[in-house]
């Protein structure tokens, strides 16, 4: 107990001051719910369940230069160790016939010539391939850097962050809700998701166990005998379908990859969250 106390007391002064201001406004709308809901009997810590909703990547990552070189080398070795295919044999035969035709003055086997050469076939295939327009790997949202859009950074995992008003300050955090007696913590996380998106987001939760936790103490002014601080337990979920409806205000949520988390989250919170996010 001594170590976490020291950590929370000797943390970044600015961050600490921010937390003090946070919980000082105890009459804010959010902490009313905290005061109303009972905590676990006997424990001075409040219990919160949070969901770490990830949008899995739709597109593979681009290859590094070393990977490109290696891929080219492997392809070269495979071609060297292979046998000729039917198409290649046909091309070789036709090349031989053409050479013979040029060497000889008159054609003996005129009837056996194919009108369609292997080269013509290859050209036709090339044309057909060019007619197909694949989807863009770098989307418009990437170019505009629109962080609320789900179509940004298709090759990375995107995590959902929401802006909550605690006291008189806006704080970015993973969506969370207070635990209510009679439900499991995973149920709390699912309830968070449902209330957040009005049942538009469908997610697959990865197991009953939490993947990480974050505990913090309330500033001295806020502490009472029954509430010393709060513990948040994070649950991982993968987004299946759905998105936020337009009714939600634009500035309240953000889909962000692991590097950009630092722009939004507080340092200690960030440190705990980074531990359980897999860096692709």
């Amino acid at each position, binding site marked *: 107990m001594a170590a976490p106390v020291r950590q929370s007391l000797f943390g970044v002064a600015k961050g600490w001051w921010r937390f003090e201001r946070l919980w000082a406004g105890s009459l804010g709308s959010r902490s009313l719910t905290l005061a109303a809901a009972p905590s*676990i009997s006997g*424990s001075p*810590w409040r*219990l919160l369940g949070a969901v770490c909703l990830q949008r*899995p*990547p*739709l*597109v*593979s990552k681009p290859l590094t230069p*070393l990977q490109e*070189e*290696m891929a080219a*080398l492997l392809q070269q070795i495979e071609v*060297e160790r*292979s*046998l*000729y295919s039917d198409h290649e*044999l046909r091309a070789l035969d036709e090349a031989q016939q053409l050479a013979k035709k040029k060497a000889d003055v008159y054609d003996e086997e005129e009837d056996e010539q194919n009108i369609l050469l292997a080269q013509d076939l290859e050209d036709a295939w090339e044309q057909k391939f060019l007619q197909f*327009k*694949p*989807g*863009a*790997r770098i*989307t418009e949202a990437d170019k505009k850097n629109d962080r609320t859009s789900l179509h940004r950074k*298709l*090759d990375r995992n995107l995590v959902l962050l929401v802006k909550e008003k605690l006291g008189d300050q806006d704080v970015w955090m993973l969506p969370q809700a207070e635990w209510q007696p009679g439900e*499991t*913590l*995973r149920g709390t996380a699912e309830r968070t998701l449902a209330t957040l998106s009005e049942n538009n987001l469908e997610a697959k*939760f*990865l*197991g*009953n*166990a*939490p*993947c*990480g*936790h974050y*505990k913090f103490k309330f500033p001295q002014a806020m502490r009472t005998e029954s509430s010393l601080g709060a*513990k948040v*337990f*994070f649950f991982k979920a*993968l987004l299946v379908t759905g998105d936020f409806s337009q009714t939600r205000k634009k500035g309240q949520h953000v889909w962000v990859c692991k590097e950009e988390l630092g722009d939004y989250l507080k340092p200690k919170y960030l440190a*705990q969250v980074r*531990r*359980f996010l*897999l*860096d692709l």
Partner: protein
Amino acid sequence: MALAALGVSACALRSRSWLLGTWQTQIRDTHQRASLLSFWELIPMRAEPLRKKKKVDPKKDQAVKDRLKKRIRRLEKASQELIPIEDFITPVRLLDKARQRPPVELPFEESERRALLLKKWSLYKHQEHEKERDAIRTMLKSQQEALQELQLMSPELHAEATKRDLSLFPFEREGPDYTPPVSNYQPPEGRYHDITKVYTQVEFRR
């Protein structure tokens, strides 16, 4: 009505002579005849003399059954045909000598470049493996710490968190492709003919 009338007449004729006796027996099965008053149909004229029953029948049946059983046993004894693994059978057209490429003589620089690239690649893969291992280790550690904290908070919630989630497996997900799906894509028209060879292995079991 006619039947009733005949029945009445039959009762009346019962007391007459034997000539009429046959008539009476014929009248008894009038319900089986096509026309009630035809005479020549009354006397069965087409019967054969009865044949004798064969005594060797059960033995013959037994012999037939034995022959069938012997045939089944011979089929069972013959080794079962195993389903061929098509990947291990080289098609005959690929054994042609004309198919083989001429052997490539690599210049010295090329072979050096290849060797160096392979070394760099093995180092890169080793580093990647270490990174992955460390990431997984931190994730597991974070989860263990969270579960310990939960245990300290409330044992009931901890017990519920450590229960198996039966809806998690089987877990299926389509992996990332090279390009994202096109929203208004029209696939080419046509029917799908599945020409995979399906082998069935017949098991003879008694």
